[in-house]
């Protein structure tokens, strides 16, 4: 590593830290209702939604809890629950 390399920023997760801490409401996915249509993935500003085995998966470490996924879900499979 050259001394100058520390001046170059590289793409990585969490450039603003653990943004999951910003959350007031937490999105909870209902496995039974979710049909993995991935509309929530398309509209998630944070890019924390991935395709899981049974249904979508959310990375709660970085999810800011904006609630867009809950609004765009046609199956109403995502619920916003107050963070404890």
């Amino acid at each position: 590593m050259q001394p100058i390399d520390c001046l170059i920023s590289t793409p990585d997760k969490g450039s603003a830290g653990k943004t999951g801490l910003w959350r007031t409401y937490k999105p909870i996915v209902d496995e039974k209702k979710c049909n993995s249509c991935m509309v929530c993935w398309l509209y998630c500003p944070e890019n924390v939604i991935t395709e899981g085995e049974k249904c979508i998966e959310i990375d709660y470490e970085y999810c800011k809890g904006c609630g867009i996924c809950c609004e765009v879900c046609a199956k109403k499979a995502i619920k916003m629950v107050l963070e404890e």
Partner: protein
Amino acid sequence: MKTIVMPGNPSCQGCPHAIGLKALGLALEDFVLVIPAGCSTIIAGIHPKATLNVPVLHVPFASAPAVAAGISAAFKRENKKKNVVIWMGDGGADIGFATISGSAVRNDDIIVIVSDNEAYMNTGIQASGTTFWKAKTTTSPAGKREDRKDLAAIMLMHRVPYVATASVGYMNDFIKKLEKVKSIKGFRFIHLHSPCPPGWRFDSSKTVEIARMAVKCGAWILWEFDGKFNLSPASKPYKDKNKRKDLKDYLKMQGRFKGLSENEILEIEKAIDKQWKYIECFENI
């Protein structure tokens, strides 16, 4: 196809820019981003980590088209087929308008995307040229008195190869337009409607809903010009005024329109009708 926006970025909750930037990654393959100062400068990352998984150049407002045209010329010289995309806000487009206009006249081989959140959000919600009629901002606390400029129509009149409007509420439409845009040569312009939760004063979960509502009540019109002027499918039904959703519902969702009188709403409605009239004229050319 890749998602270029990394999780844990510094954008606000429900940020429309992050949604829009994601579409860029999904539609374009090899590209370089040029970002003049604005919200997106911050979203691009805080040192030592970067948010965007593509090469990004941060530039002052007015120099963006010049820088982009330079990069594009260099790529051409090296026989590389790469797109150069300018991602700017409406502030960048207001302040750097002369250079965008110049670049359009020279028909530089670049893509310009203006992510329009209808005010200068990054500096504290000051009214811009594209701010919605009667919207309250910190420089128009009683509601904006001036008319609103239609940036996409102005760019259309530069007679460039491609001009379109898009919305973060209609991602498939936006991605389709981007996919079309990447193979066209010359100056390409997309005006993206981006509802901003803190600036427009609504809940962060409503970004997409409000963007869709703007199209449904006719306040934002989706169209495309690629040699021929076409209304996009999402906006087509709302050409008929009776099919449009009630404008009041759209205004009621946002804190920036709090306390509008009936007369003022009527005025906005008239302004929207006027906007539709000249879009219909474009369609008939």
